[in-house]
């Protein structure tokens, strides 16, 4: 399993907000330079001695999983830094490399300040022991001495609001109580740099509010916090900067709002084709223009729900192409894909094109969408599945749809019938 690498230049420069994306002026608390981490996954999970003896050379078969590939970035002292990405994108592995739990294969990681050794809540909790014992154990693992752990115990329990359950075994705790206890213990850490993996998943609203307050407190105290999350809401709320990872590669770094958008796009903004390789797009076939039209062929920037809407783009061919697939993808500002229009749908044909030709493609549809701004991504692929993209420009132009909103994504014409019986 080799994760494909994608040129960083085309993707990073596109959306990062220059004001925040540049490395901050303060001295870096964490610097990560060219870090790569590869896991070797043996084909058989456990090799027994017998297998070793019978097949001395077989064990050399491994799948290589490039969990993190050549990632570099710096985090300034006092920054609240988010790492986002889909499952398996390498963000937790990267965090573990920073924490020193995994060694790196290449590159180097530098840290200025004391690092909390924890990256997940409640590690070392033992279900057969009471909250009292577990808090002390957990705090010692956090790096406190036994005496410190004992002296902070009351405070921890008070914060977790578990005074009545101090001598209850953890196996009788609800999951919410467990998280409260774990979080209350973890924020006792005296480190200057905190690494936190997926924290705010559980806990009721009132307790979450308390957690947020603690985060703001840590932020005010100038602690450096790196946190991995799927919750874009908290990333946007807390982080000064964020980073998006995909397939072990850093795709984008900068303003958390831009990162959150890019993350939504990754998850929900599926395009019919992948972006073509950088060398192919240079001199080759290109999308020259993209725009929206109304039914009478006028270019428009906004449209009402009642009118038909045309998604249009112009392609200049630099090579001969037989039956290419044209596609237009309409996405929301958050990056969710709403409409994918393809020229090969229902057996449609596009004809053949010679180098030097140009073509204008128009897809017409009703604008039955909730009032908002929508972004058009035109693309062109070779004949076949449509996976082999020739040209693709993400979010090339946009349209504002206005009208009434029922609260859903679609505003379809409704026929209502009420029959009294």
């Amino acid at each position, binding site marked *: 399993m080799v994760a494909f690498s994608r040129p960083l230049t085309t993707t990073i420069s596109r959306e990062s907000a220059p004001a925040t994306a540049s490395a901050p002026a303060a001295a870096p608390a964490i610097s990560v330079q060219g870090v790569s981490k590869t896991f070797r996954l043996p084909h058989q999970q456990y*090799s*027994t001695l017998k297998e070793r003896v019978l097949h001395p050379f077989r064990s050399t078969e491994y799948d290589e999983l490039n969990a993190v590939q050549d990632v570099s970035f710096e985090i300034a002292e006092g920054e609240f830094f988010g790492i986002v990405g889909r499952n398996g994108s390498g963000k937790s592995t990267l965090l573990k490399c920073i924490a*020193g*739990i995994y060694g790196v294969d290449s590159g180097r990681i530098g840290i*200025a300040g004391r690092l909390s050794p924890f990256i997940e809540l409640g590690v070392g909790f033992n279900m057969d022991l009471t909250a009292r014992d577990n808090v002390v154990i957990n705090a010692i693992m956090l790096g406190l001495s036994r005496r410190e752990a004992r002296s902070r115990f009351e405070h921890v329990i008070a914060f977790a609001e578990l005074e009545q359950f101090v001598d209850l075994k953890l196996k009788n705790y609800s999951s919410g109580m467990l998280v409260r206890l774990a979080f209350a213990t973890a924020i006792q850490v005296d480190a200057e740099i905190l690494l936190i993996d997926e924290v705010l998943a559980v806990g009721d609203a009132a307790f979450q509010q308390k957690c947020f307050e603690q985060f703001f407190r840590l932020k005010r105290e100038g602690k450096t916090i790196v946190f991995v999350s799927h919750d874009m809401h908290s990333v946007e709320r807390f982080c000064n900067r964020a980073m998006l990872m995909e397939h072990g590669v850093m795709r984008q770094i900068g303003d958390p709002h831009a990162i959150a958008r890019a993350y939504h796009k990754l998850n929900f903004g599926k395009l019919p084709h992948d972006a073509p390789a950088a060398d192919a797009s240079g001199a080759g076939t290109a999308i020259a223009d993209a725009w929206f039209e109304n039914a009478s062929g006028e270019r428009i920037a906004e449209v009402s729900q009642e009118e038909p809407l045309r998604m249009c783009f112009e392609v200049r061919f630099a090579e001969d192409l037989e039956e290419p697939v044209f596609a237009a993808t309409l996405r929301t500002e958050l990056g969710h894909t709403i409409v994918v229009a393809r020229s090969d749908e229902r057996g449609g044909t596009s004809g053949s094109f010679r180098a030097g030709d140009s073509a204008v493609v128009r897809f017409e549809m009703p604008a039955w969408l909730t009032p908002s701004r929508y972004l058009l991504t035109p693309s062109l692929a070779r004949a076949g599945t449509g996976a082999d993209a020739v040209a693709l420009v993400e979010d090339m132009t946009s349209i504002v749809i206005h009208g009434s909103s029922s609260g859903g994504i679609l505003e379809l014409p409704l026929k209502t019938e009420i029959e009294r019986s």
Partner: protein
Amino acid sequence: MSVPVEAAVLDQQPHRVHGPSALSGDLRRFWSLTVTLARTEFKVRFYGSVLGYLWTLVRPLLLFGVIWVFFTQVGHVNDTTQPGMEQYGSQLLGSIVLMQFFAEATGGAVRSMVDRENMLRKIHFPRLVIPASVVLLAMFNLGLNLIVWLIFSLISGVEPMVSWLVLPVIVGGLVLVTAGMAMLLSALFVWFRDIQPIWEVLLQILFYASPVIISIQTVEKDFGTTALHLYMLNPLAVIFQQFRHSMVTHATPSAGQALGSWAALLEPMAIVLAIFAVGFAVFDRSAARIAENL
């Protein structure tokens, strides 16, 4: 936090992050983590049982009772009237207690890394803490069992001797071998899951290949001097025999006397140190990658 100011300032200098290792970080954290893990294990183990900790003390006594009855009263394997077999009960119980320590520590260490997978994957800490905590808990049990042995021995008429002062050396040697094996086994088990059943069988063999039930005089009488020398290559045999000599009765030879000279003891001593060194080396080498191979 009790970290001195200078240290905190020094910490501000960027330092390179290294991967996990056997013994990284300061010794204080190593020790407090080891103690904490051992305590936790102790609490967990004895929470659910009615007699609780008493079982740890009763178990060697029960085993002792069985062996005593079968080998002296029923089977007459050992003639307790022979010289060297004086205070056979105290000798037997002493060996059982030492053997139990070795078996508990090494047997517990085998799975220890794998069982603490969660910790290994989520926290940065010196990896050696885990087998060390297993050995530490076993040492605590050994201490209490030795008290039981002492009470038993005094009741059955063993006289206090100056040679009791050698006990720390004997226990020290035993702890070295045990810690070496614990490190070796816990690291190897991550890669070879066969280690567990193999080690269980080996522990059984070691029980019979050490002076627990049978005295070394019997070995020498039945199999000859060469066999005895081979037998004494087993570090446990040397340690147990020295215990029986120094702690119970001088009627049974010391390890040095059994081998003919004190110089001959260098061999088992070298083996003890070699086991410890190999155990540490293997553990240290694999420590960096244990977390990702669990």
